[in-house]
């Protein structure tokens, strides 16, 4: 059972309410596809991913980045039942999309870096720690239905 302190809940809510999902979602996904190019394997049907410029201007990738942030939003709104909230998504990523769960951590790292760039000094060590704990719980929940 994941236990969240009042402080951690407050930090997560504060981070997400400061984010523009339409901006940070595409940035985080693009960063992941550029920095860890093997993740492009899951986006074969998304169009031109030939180079960084193509990835950054790809509307399908941008739309999907926004979708991902809205998916994370569901976890933020259900902090005490993230595993249950993500049961269907986990099955989808395992059975249909066949995504190696290690890749969730890579995307999480990229999102952390985009948030750090946005918040600057506001992204304290405590904030980073709490956010990474949240992402670890999310990643764990997404990997739960794999077998």
């Amino acid at each position, binding site marked *: 059972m994941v236990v969240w302190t009042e402080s951690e809940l407050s930090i997560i809510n504060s981070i997400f309410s400061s984010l523009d999902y339409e901006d940070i979602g595409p940035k985080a996904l693009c960063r992941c596809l*550029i920095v860890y190019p093997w993740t492009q394997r899951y986006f074969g049907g998304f169009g031109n991913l030939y180079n960084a410029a193509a990835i950054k201007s790809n509307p399908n990738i941008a739309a999907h980045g926004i979708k991902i942030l809205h998916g994370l939003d569901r976890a933020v709104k259900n902090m005490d039942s993230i595993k249950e909230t993500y049961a269907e998504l986990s099955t989808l990523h395992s059975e249909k999309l066949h995504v190696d769960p290690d890749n969730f951590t890579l995307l999480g790292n990229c999102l952390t870096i985009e948030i750090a760039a946005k918040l600057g000094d506001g*992204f304290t*060590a405590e904030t980073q720690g709490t956010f990474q704990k949240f992402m670890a719980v999310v990643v764990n929940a997404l990997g739960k239905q794999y077998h």
Partner: protein
Amino acid sequence: MSLTDNDIATVKAIWPKIAKVANEVGPESLARMLCIYPQTKIYFSHWSDLSIQSTKVKEHGVVIMKGLSLAVEKINDMANGLQDLSQKHAFQMRVDPANFRLLSQCIHVVLAKRFKAEYTPEVHLAMDKFLSNVALAIAEKYR
């Protein structure tokens, strides 16, 4: 995943800016790693204070950045250039190489915080490849 000419050029272009604030970036990255990945504390159990304010942590953060500056200097042959550091990590400190990734993530976060929009995915990619190669060079003498 060896460094291309473009990677080397990108790292060398940003490094002078990083070097200017090395005495802050190093300590902050190390302190964050100890705080966020508490298992890494075991390598520093000989220090009583591992908090962000710790003098020892600050000093060691600076030492780490000096090591990275050396790696930039020897970027074309890190395995040979970082031999002494590799010996230390292999035989004295015996740091599990998995931990190098954790420190790398913290370095990326601290650099992104400081350089913001300048820490583009392309710069991040080159730095990540550079840090991965440093980790490989450090682990060269492990077995």
